């Protein structure tokens, strides 16, 4: 799908498009009202103070005549001052409306875009996050988003303001004196052109300074992370020199950049002054020769002064707009990534089980997972998965797990165990073969419903920076005390929670840093158990627990399962493990080697033949050690 930046922005503007138009209208009105006062000055100077016949629109002229003409105003000069104040009050009002409406519109648009991005990120396939750096995504979501926000909140307004001011000024100037208009405008395009070119050109210097800063930061970070190496080799001086070089380079480049700005502002002052000098000189000469009224002259000086500043800023603003476009493109690129449901719709519509899928979709509504799930039988048939085309992580894996059974997976690192676990909840999609849950291909089951039925506990669980309780309730929503303590007891987390002073209200810190690996794993198990899934998948979940705690957790799970079995509701369990004690207790063990099933059987069956399982049993049962010790005791 091509990314369409402006379409994304347009969509996010839903609901505030009218507000934006309103804001733009007030941009114009504010610009217009800020240009009235030179006219009042002109009128006051010429018609009131100098007594020349007023150059007014008919309705104002007749109104004035009714009051007694210019002499009335001369006696009541405060009326001119009042007119000035009214114009500026109007200007203040329009400016306020301009500012607040564009804030309302911009913040709402940003919120819409932000919410849509957040929702979309949640819906992207897990594989997307495997190939995209998290830091980059966070940057798109935050700093790029802020760049877009600033564009909407200020830059649109600034560009509009400069253009409106320039346009209205030209019109007003032309309306009062054509000759002076020609004299007052020629350098203005040069001011704009100079500023635009300058800010375009200076981007390179900006980039150089940014890169130098990044390099300096990198040296700093490496120093901090490698501080032990630095100290142990007594390399402090070397490091200081290395940092100093980067620090100096960054300093020099940025200083050079600032000097460039010095040139820019200096020249810009000159250009603007030149335009003012021309207007004042020519104007003064024309007044002296009687071709121009004093009031018009003063009004022109005011107009030139007023239009120069925004034009000077316009060049800068336009380069900022360029940056905003890049940022918007980066956000739109993420939004254009197909989400994990995109492919489903095709399948559900054309697949053989379309109606089953429709039923599934209909029944997802409110029913708890345990009720809508039937048995908990899993059939894996010829499952093949590849992360990169041609590189098979799983190849033709088939096995069946009966309802209520416990099946263990054993294999070397990289043999594909975790991929099976991920495929069961559709975090990865098979390239070939299928997985069926109670006879239905899981591709025909809505992902969320599937994940409600099959609870996967990851080996390296991610905890959120909240309290323990909130982490457990993440998947289940608020839990009754009884349910909470059940999940805690089964997972062995009860002892962890009670070992902290604040108990369940203890905050776990960023990514759960305040907990040990084993504690994090138990919390992750608890939060899945709290959802009471029909099928429980443990992906090496208890690896960081000491053997005693591991045994206790498994004992609890078994006894709960036995109790449930009486009512025919024992959960089906698939467990990835390498502890022989865990493996032995399974109804069936699947041994994986390089993405294929090398062997399947019960403990007794696998022990009867040579292979990975027996080897692991020997190692962990101490047989290998005893053999080695008997063989002479020396290590390899």
């Amino acid at each position, binding site marked *: 799908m091509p990314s369409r930046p402006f379409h994304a922005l347009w969509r996010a503007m839903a609901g505030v498009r009218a507000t934006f138009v309103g804001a733009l209208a007030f941009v114009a009105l504010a610009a217009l009202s800020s240009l009235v006062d030179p006219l009042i000055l002109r009128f006051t100077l010429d018609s009131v103070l100098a007594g020349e016949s007023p150059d007014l629109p008919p309705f104002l002229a007749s109104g004035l005549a009714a009051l007694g003409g210019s002499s009335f105003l001369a006696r009541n000069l405060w009326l001119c001052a009042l007119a000035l104040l009214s114009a500026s009050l109007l200007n203040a009002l329009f*400016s306020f409306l301009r500012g607040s409406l564009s804030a309302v519109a911009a*913040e709402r648009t940003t919120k819409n875009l932000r919410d849509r991005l957040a929702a979309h990120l949640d819906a992207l396939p897990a594989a997307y996050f495997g190939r995209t750096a998290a830091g980059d995504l966070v940057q798109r979501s935050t700093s790029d988003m802020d760049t877009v926000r600033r564009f909407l*909140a200020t830059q649109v307004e600034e560009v509009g303001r400069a253009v409106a001011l320039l346009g209205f000024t030209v019109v007003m100037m032309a309306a009062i004196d054509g000759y002076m208009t020609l004299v007052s405008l020629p350098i203005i395009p040069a001011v704009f052109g100079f500023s635009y070119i300058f800010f375009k050109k200076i981007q390179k210097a900006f980039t150089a300074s940014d890169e130098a800063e990044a390099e300096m930061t990198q040296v700093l970070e490496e120093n901090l992370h490698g501080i032990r190496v630095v100290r142990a080799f007594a390399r402090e001086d070397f490091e*200081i020199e290395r940092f100093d070089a980067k620090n100096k380079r960054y300093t020099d480049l940025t200083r050079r950049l600032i000097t460039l700005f010095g040139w820019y502002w200096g020249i810009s002052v000159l250009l603007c002054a030149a335009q003012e000098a021309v207007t*004042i000189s020519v104007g003064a000469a024309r*007044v002296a020769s009687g071709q121009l009224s004093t009031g018009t002259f003063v009004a022109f000086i005011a107009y030139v002064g007023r239009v120069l500043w925004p034009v000077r800023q316009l060049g800068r603003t336009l380069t900022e707009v360029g940056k905003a476009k890049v940022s918007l493109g980066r956000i739109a690129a993420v939004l254009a990534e197909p989400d994990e449901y995109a492919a489903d719709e095709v399948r559900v519509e054309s697949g053989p089980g379309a109606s089953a899928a429709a039923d599934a979709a209909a029944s997802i509504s409110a029913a708890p997972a345990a009720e809508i799930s039937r048995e908990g039988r899993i059939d894996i048939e010829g499952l093949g998965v590849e992360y990169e085309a041609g590189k098979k992580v799983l190849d033709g894996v088939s096995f069946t797990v009966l309802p209520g059974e416990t099946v263990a997976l054993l294999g070397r690192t990289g043999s594909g165990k975790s991929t099976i676990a991920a495929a069961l909840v559709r975090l990865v999609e098979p390239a070939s073969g299928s997985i069926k849950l109670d006879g239905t291909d899981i591709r025909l089951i809505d992902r969320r419903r599937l994940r409600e039925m099959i609870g996967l506990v990851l080996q390296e669980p991610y905890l959120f920076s909240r309290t323990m309780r909130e982490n457990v309730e993440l998947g289940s929503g608020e839990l009754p005390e009884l349910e909470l303590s059940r999940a805690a007891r089964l997972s062995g987390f009860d002892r962890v929670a009670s070992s902290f002073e604040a108990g369940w209200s203890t905050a776990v810190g960023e990514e759960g840093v305040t907990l040990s690996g084993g504690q994090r794993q138990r919390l992750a198990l608890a939060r899945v158990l709290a959802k009471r899934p029909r099928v429980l998948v443990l992906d090496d979940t208890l690896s960081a627990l000491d053997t005693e705690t591991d045994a206790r957790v498994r004992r609890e799970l078994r006894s709960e399962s036995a109790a449930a079995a009486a009512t025919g509701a024992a959960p089906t369990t698939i467990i990835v493990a390498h502890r022989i004690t865990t493996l032995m207790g399974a109804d069936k063990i699947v041994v994986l080697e390089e993405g294929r099933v090398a062997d399947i059987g019960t403990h007794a069956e696998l022990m009867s033949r040579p292979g990975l399982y027996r080897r692991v049993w020997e190692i962990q049962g101490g047989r290998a050690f005893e053999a080695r010790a008997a063989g002479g005791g020396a290590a390899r």
Partner: protein
Amino acid sequence: MEEIDERQSLKLSLWRSLFRFAAPYKRRFILLGILMALVAAIDAFQPFLTGWAVDNIAIAGRLDRLPRFVILFGSLMAVQAVMVRVFIGIGGKVEMGMNYGIRAAAFDKLQKLSFSYFDKTSAGWITARLTSDIGRLADIIAWGVIDMVWGLSMMLISAIIMIATDWRLALCALSALPVLVLISIFFERGILERSRVVRRTNSRLTAAFSENIRGVRAVKTLVAEERQGSAFRRLSETMRKASVRQAMLGALYLPLVVFLGYVGMALALWQGGERVMIGGATIGLLTAFIFSASRFFDPATDLARVLADLQYAQASAERVVGLIDTEPAIVDGPAAIARGQGRLGPRLEGRVEFEGVSFSYDGKREVLSDFNLGVEPGSTIALVGETGSGKSTVVNLACRFYEPTSGRILVDGIDYRELPLRYLHANLGYVLQQPYLFSGTVRENIRYGRLDASDDEVVAAARVARAHDFIAGGPGRQGLDGGYGAQVGEGGVLLSTGQKQLISLARAVLADPAILVLDEATSSVDTETERLVQDAIGAVLEGRTSFVIAHRLSTIVDADLILVMRDGRVVERGGHEELLTKGGAYARLYEAQFIAEEERLELGIVSEEVEESA
């Protein structure tokens, strides 16, 4: 995340302690002050020059005066342009100079601070201090001063010129000043308050995005999209409201200031106009007052912004000064300084003795109690035990990364607190649990062990550490792309953990330290690499005093002395055979270690060290 209250009033003592970094720029600051006052003077004077032209050229019909005006106006503006160019240049020098100076001082301090500081302070925190905080400080000190001097001078000089020219009209033009001050104080507070809310909400929003992205698998497997989504949308809405509230204040404040300018202008027009009619003032003077009045309040918004920035920057100042003023916990005493005078001594022999050493990281819980150990030069000590048993503490103390709470450690018979820290570290080698390489080439990383080593010496060290073959290639195998010149780290070649271990061993070989500390890490490597690493470790330990936190059976078995630690005490000590036959703690640990190693080679699993049950 710590919260420093930004509402607090200005703390002068804090800023004074930053003055030392401004000191080298004292003359530039004075120059800047003068320049800004001059720039402001020209800005303030310009309307009166225009007014003069209106009266004396235009109305008076004296075209002959035009050249004089053009020359005066032109040269004033030329001077102005030059001053603008110069003050920005100086401002840049001051800003970046202070930036550089403060950052260099902070980095120097970081190289001196003891590990107890780094234990408490995250690298990310420190990085933020050295980059954004220091940047903000230098910015506000340099440009804040410029804006402030210009703004105040501009208002002051304008006022003086106006009063001197016509005090009654001046009163009209300046009449709104008290209102401006009141309004500015009110808005400055409000804007500060509201932008604090925005910033705080924004950092929560960033955290939420980050958690949702990094924890996406958790969100999906728990089907927590809805719950997460609604929490996010609530936060997002809070952010929207806070931002609008902040923007509203700004949208109100700026037009108000402009309006106040017009109040002065309108009053000047009214009173000035009447004076013109009775002949008490000229049109040109009136024009000058009107233009002056409309500009008079321009600096107000700048001044309000500088004051607000100053308050934000105070939090940065506090953190930066805090870092620079932190005293290192370990410093050379007078004895060490006397001994280290001028030159570093000869290479140490490597005799290390712990005499009744106890240690506590936090001053409460002892992690090592009454530890005694004598190590002959050249011998290898293997430390084994569970996590938290005190192995790492022994190593940290031996390196003098920390000093004993009580007891003493002798190196070559001298209490090491009497030796210069640099001297000790120059005789020390340290190979990390997780090998740490710096970005740069393979050669540079090895040379880190001894900076003046020749290329040949680097290669020789790599050979000893069994790293040469994979770097440069050898019989039947390809080397790294670029050999010793290959870049490691970001954007460079991807090295396996085993290869990184070999390079960091080569680094230690090149350093040729008298005392070597090795925090041995095991990782999932192929048997070939594992054999290389074992060989390399054997070669590196040869001939020097070594402390090894050992995980490999080969290292343990070959050690001259094995210490089995538990709860900060040595529970068993002796040789491998001796301890094994004893059948105690060591025998059990050895078996566990054996199983772990077999598992690692069979299954590729690196078992974490067993935690003590909680």
